[in-house]
């Protein structure tokens, strides 16, 4: 932390007011931990989920332990298709950057797993509930690895 300025003024009751401008910045090394195989999958062009060998429940976002019976799950590949539950056009960039606003964001129920993701849909049209979308892998470096994917509306199904 460092102090970059001092402001001396007077309050509404005439009392002295003293303000410090302070700055602080952090760098983090963030372990994605049990989601690591998912992130590796993104680099290989595949979306991965997990399934519980005990009860058969499938999880996306993937979970290392099945929350139902605490059994260690196994990884498998998803087809990469899904259905929109709701969509919105967002007018500010995400915190890590990487998308110029406005952009379309949708809650998507994924095929092949009992789960879903809230993610970007390409194009400027806001898809309606029930619209079928497919994952697209983006070639250029993304601001965050999760932005290496987006979803596209299947031709003729908008």
């Amino acid at each position, binding site marked *: 932390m460092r102090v970059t300025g001092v402001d001396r003024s007077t309050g509404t009751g005439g009392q002295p007011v003293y303000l410090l401008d302070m700055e602080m910045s952090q760098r983090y090394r963030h372990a994605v931990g049990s989601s690591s195989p998912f992130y590796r999958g993104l680099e290989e062009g595949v979306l991965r989920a997990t399934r519980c060998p005990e009860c058969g429940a499938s999880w996306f976002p993937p979970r290392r332990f099945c929350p139902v019976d605490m059994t260690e799950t196994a990884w498998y590949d998803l087809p990469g298709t899904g259905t929109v539950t709701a969509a919105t056009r967002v007018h500010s960039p995400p915190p890590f950057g990487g998308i110029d606003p*406005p952009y379309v964001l949708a809650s998507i129920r994924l095929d092949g797993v009992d789960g879903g993701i809230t993610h970007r849909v390409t194009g400027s049209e806001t898809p309606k509930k029930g619209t079928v979308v497919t994952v697209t892998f983006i070639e250029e470096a993304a601001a965050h690895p999760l932005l290496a994917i987006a979803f596209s509306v299947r031709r003729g199904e908008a």
Partner: protein
Amino acid sequence: MTSFSGDTVLVAGVGMTPFVGFRHDASVRDMVAEASRTAVADAGLRSTSQIDMGVAAYESDHFNRQMSLGQVLHDTVGLAGKPLVRVEGGGATGALAIRTALMALRSGEARSVLVFGGETNGKSVDRATATEILAMSADLEWETPVFGTFAAPYALMITEHMRRYGTTAEQFAQIAVKNRRLALDNPLAHRGMSITVDDVRSSAPLSDPYRLFDASLLSDGAAAVLLATSEWSEQHSPTFAARPPVAVLASAAATDHPRLSDRTDEMFPHFAAKRNAAAEAYRAAGIDDPPNQVDLAEVYDSFSGAELQAYEDLVLCPVGRGGQAAAEGRFDRGGQVVVNPSGGLLGRGSAVGATGIAQAVEVVSQLRGEVTGPRAVSGARIGITDTHAGVGSLCVVNVFARAA
């Protein structure tokens, strides 16, 4: 109920600071001290020496710039030496702190508990930094990388509500208008405004259909309540006999999947945890007809549409009819239930750790009949507070009642 039994938990004192955009003359500890001093004086006490325990409510070290702030606040209000617990529950933090105090009192662990909360959500950091910090309360692994403000998940929920029930943007814009108008009569409110539905709809777009005026305010502020058993209040609080006692009749908390995309299609446009917390709170309070028994409700209107959704999940109107109720002004001043007489988060503002406590301050003041002028909900006997974290991941409903 005509009177309360000896182990009933009463509200012995309440206090809050004004909610403002930036307190250039006070730190968070100053604000908590101001609110606590008011609450203690309201109980007729000259100090906190007779109080058994403290519960500190605040959400974010990123905003407050002080780790272990609870201990600093506890010491500031004269409770050093006494037990302390710090509570964090996102937007529900203040209400959860009241619930925690209630549990301590009901267990017999304490006979009196000072609940104090504060936050500097206002302009101590620039807007971009504030947005960045708040974005971290979405799921950092799966959500934060794709959306930066909470307008987005709220917008997804209300979009489905609109599709399913025919709710319109003009209907929830009316809530933004109502709460800012009600805040005009609250001297402690951050920003009361006289605006129209057109003003709301023509303000800057955030995440469709939400616009700037649909979003609540980020404030600096603090609030405190002194909760105590009836027996303790009678013994120690000189103001006890002077006014009708107000009890914490019930408190309930419930949770939901924090990530929106993990929720079922059926419940997607609803706050399931709010519905469950409300059902439990009403059951415990013996309320079986909320719209006719609840006189006022301080509701978590983080976005205008969230209040509309809360009408339904708090059982103040049937599911799917929140939009119609908003359009009819059914929960406006003079309505069946007055929702957010304080102005809510849209008008009174929100300093996260203080918000749920400030709601209780408003409800208790109303139930005691101490609110005068146009803001008064006359003859009110039962009031509730409603807050939630995230987009309803943790919901707390507290019920307050005045002895008849």
